[in-house]
C-alpha cells in the first residue's frame, strides 16, 4: 500500500527523544508507533478518508503526544538512575519520582513546541489545500510572535539553569531554540542557528554532567 503518510518525520522524532536509551527500548518504541500509524492509515483508508484527512489525523495525533513523549523520556532516565543507585533490576512501583524543577520548565517548553508545531502544520495543510502546492507562510502573526518570545525565553533560561541542572538546561535551550526557529521558519538562518545552539547546549550539558560526577 502506498501510504499517504510518510513515517520518516515521526521516526526522526522517536530517534531524537529516545537518544541515549538502550537499543531495545528505542527499537520497541519505534516499531510500536510505526505499527500503530500503519493500522490507523489502513483503517482510515478503508473508511474512505482522503489522503489530506488521513495526514491531518495522523500528524495531529502524533503532535498531541509530544509532551508525553518528553515526560516518558524523563521517566526513563529517572528509572534508570534509581535502578543504578538502588541496584534494583526492575521497577515495580507505579510512582514515578518526578521533580518539580524538571517538570515545570519541561512542560512549558513542551507546550510551546506542540503549540508551534500544530500552528505550522495546520497553516501548511491549509496552504496546501488551497494552492495544491507547498508554499511556506511568510506572515509573523501575533501568536507566532508570542511563541517566538517563549522560545527565546526558554533558550536564555536554559543557559541560565544549565550549571545547576545540565539536562534541564539542555532541554530548555534546545527546545527554546527549536520553537524560535519554527516560528521564523521561512528563514533558513534561525534553523541553522537552532541546530548549532542545540549541539552546543547538549555538549555543554554533557561536559557539566561529567564534571559533576
Amino acid at each position, binding site marked *: 500500500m502506498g501510504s499517504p503518510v510518510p513515517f520518516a518525520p515521526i521516526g526522526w522524532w522517536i530517534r531524537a527523544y529516545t537518544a541515549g536509551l538502550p537499543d531495545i527500548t528505542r527499537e520497541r518504541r519505534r516499531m510500536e508507533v510505526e*505499527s*500503530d500509524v*500503519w493500522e490507523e492509515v489502513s483503517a482510515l483508508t478503508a473508511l474512505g478518508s482522503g489522503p489530506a484527512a488521513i495526514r491531518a489525523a495522523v500528524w495531529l*495525533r502524533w503532535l498531541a*503526544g509530544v509532551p508525553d513523549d518528553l515526560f*516518558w523520556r524523563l521517566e526513563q532516565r529517572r528509572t534508570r538512575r534509581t535502578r543504578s543507585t538502588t541496584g534494583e533490576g526492575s521497577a515495580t512501583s*507505579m510512582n514515578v519520582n518526578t521533580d518539580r524543577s524538571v*517538570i515545570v520548565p519541561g512542560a512549558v517548553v513542551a507546550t510551546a513546541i506542540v503549540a508551534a508545531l500544530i500552528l505550522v502544520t495546520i497553516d501548511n495543510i491549509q496552504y496546501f489545500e488551497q494552492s495544491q502546492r507547498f508554499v511556506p507562510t511568510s506572515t509573523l502573526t501575533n501568536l507566532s510572535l508570542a511563541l517566538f518570545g517563549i522560545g527565546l525565553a526558554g533558550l536564555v533560561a536554559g543557559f541560565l539553569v544549565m550549571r545547576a541542572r545540565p539536562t534541564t538546561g539542555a532541554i530548555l535551550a534546545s527546545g527554546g531554540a527549536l520553537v524560535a526557529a519554527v516560528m521564523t521558519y521561512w528563514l533558513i538562518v534561525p534553523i541553522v542557528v537552532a541546530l548549532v545552539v542545540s549541539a552546543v547546549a547538549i555538549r555543554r550539558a554533557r561536559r557539566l554532567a561529567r564534571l559533576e560526577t
Partner: protein
Amino acid sequence: MRRKPGALLPIEISILVAGLDLGGRGVAEFHGYLLASEIADRDGARRLMAHGSLYRALGRLETAGLLESRWEDPDLGAAEGRPRRRLYHVTVAGARAANRAITERAAQVFDPRPGAAAAS
C-alpha cells in the same frame, strides 16, 4: 507529582477497562491502535488517544504488572504486508485493579453521606 501507591490515572483505568472489554468479546490480546480505537468508541471521542499518551500509559501499566505484552510472530505481519504488532493482555492483577478503581469511582460519585462529595 506523586500519587498514592496503587492509584490509577483515568487514562490507565480506560486502558484496562477497554482491554477487559475486548477480552470479553474474544479478543484475548490487543495492539495499541486497536486499544485506542476501542477507547475512542467507548468515550465517543472524535480523535484517538495520542501515540505519546497511549504508549507512555501502556509502559507504566506493564511496569506495574497490570499488563503483559509480547511481539507477535514476525511471519504473521509479513504475510499480511504490515509491521509487526506488539500484543498486550490484561493480567489478573490488572483486572483486579480496574475493578477496584471502578468501584472506588462509583462510591465517590454515589456516596450518600452528607457532605461526602465536598469532602472528597
